[in-house]
């Protein structure tokens, strides 16, 4: 029951799973070991894999642990697996953000916040499993309510919903961005709707 044995077991278990493995699940399997020992074995592994020359990192996502390839290697990995990168349209991202922050939320509420019909986007997000139906709201008409899924956390590499920036932080960022834009951009050359989303602006803000 040495530490290195436990670390080896944890490494095997996380490696072999095709979804993030939670600490609870590890404890359930490694019943001979104590929770705290398991937790520190995970932490030690994370440290080891954090070295910059490694091609794999141990990430904490969706309330579990998962090995993932290092970001800088993405281009080569794409050459190997030849998948089409999934991308999100502005409307999908907006809707997803609203659902992430305001869940459980009805379609009518989403549409009030966005100011546009959102049925199509909601359906697509359901199909992509980024959101799910949580049930029905206890108000007249009993509308469906939506929330984000575990897949949402996995795809956006989020540990949990709490690790999203708070709305207050976002407000500050947004105010900053707005000021910058007004300074940077002369009237003649207006940013088209979305262009304040430009990476350059964002970096300047940091």
């Amino acid at each position, binding site marked *: 029951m040495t530490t290195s044995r436990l670390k080896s077991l944890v490494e095997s278990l996380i490696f072999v799973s095709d979804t993030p493995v939670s600490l609870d699940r590890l404890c359930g399997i490694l019943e001979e070991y104590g929770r705290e020992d398991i937790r520190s074995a995970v932490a030690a592994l994370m440290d080891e894999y954090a070295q910059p020359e490694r091609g794999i990192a141990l990430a904490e996502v969706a309330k579990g642990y998962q090995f993932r390839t290092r970001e800088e290697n993405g281009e080569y990995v794409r050459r190997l697996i030849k998948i089409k990168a999934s991308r999100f349209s502005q409307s999908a*991202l907006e809707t997803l953000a609203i659902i992430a922050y305001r869940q459980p939320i009805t379609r009518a509420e989403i549409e009030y916040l966005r*100011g546009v019909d959102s049925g199509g986007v909601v359906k697509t997000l359901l199909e992509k499993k980024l959101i799910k139906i949580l049930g029905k709201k206890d108000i007249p008409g009993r509308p469906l309510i939506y929330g984000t899924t575990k897949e949402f956390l996995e795809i*956006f590499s989020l540990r949990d919903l709490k690790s999203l920036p708070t709305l207050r932080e976002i407000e500050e*960022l*947004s105010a900053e961005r707005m000021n910058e834009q007004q300074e940077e951009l002369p009237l003649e050359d*207006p*940013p088209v*709707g979305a262009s304040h989303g430009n990476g350059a602006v964002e970096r300047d803000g940091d």
Partner: protein
Amino acid sequence: MVRHQVENHDNSEQYNTLYNVKLDKFEGPLDLLLYLIRKNELDIYDISISIITGQYLEYLKLMKELNLEVAGEFLVMASTLIQIKSNMLLPTREEDHSGEEEEEDPRAELVRRLLEYSRYKEAALLLSERKLLGRELFARSFPAPELQTVEKSDEPLEVELFELIEAFRAILAKAPRESFHEVSAESISIAERINEILSLLQEKELILFDELFENSLDRDYIVATFLAVLELCKLKMIRVRQQTQYGVLRIMPAVVEPVEEPRSEGGGDDVAT
């Protein structure tokens, strides 16, 4: 930049395409308004409604001139803006408490929506800047080879509600034609009411007939509920009892989970009366 080019080109076809592309970028009226506010360097807490309304309406006009379909939401917002503008023209009373004064500002609701919307727009941007699994990061999404021989015990199940209903929809799409009649709006609501009554009976052992109609006075609903009760009686899944003549009808479950004796032919028949 797009606008700049538009102004320099006479070629109307190009004009059309360019604007088309540009207008598509506004996710909706709120997005367009935010753009106009930023363009005019307006303070979002003190928007000049006349400037904004003017430019907003110009935009809609332009969209129509270009034969672009203007979504209903844009028109609704236009009338909201005009409404606010006319309210602003009414003499406002000076209040002693500034807080109350703010509440009376006809723009308040719009400002709140714009602020709220800009927050989520920002949040969307932050999401898009994250490293995505399947784009920058990759995990092993397949079972490890050494596990392929291990037989799974399939105790816990993982499935989303949406998959369930999509499966049902797919079935209906390819089911034999005749079954389509059954899926008409009316029969769906009977099936729904059957489900609702069954789930009520799971919660409590007894419901009063009148309770079933409490939620609605809608005629179709009442008919569907009544047919659902008849159907359930016919299936012998509920018992309907009355203490006195013209008394209250009581509905009870007829079967309590007779899982054990499905094959006995004459035995379990008298579960209901």
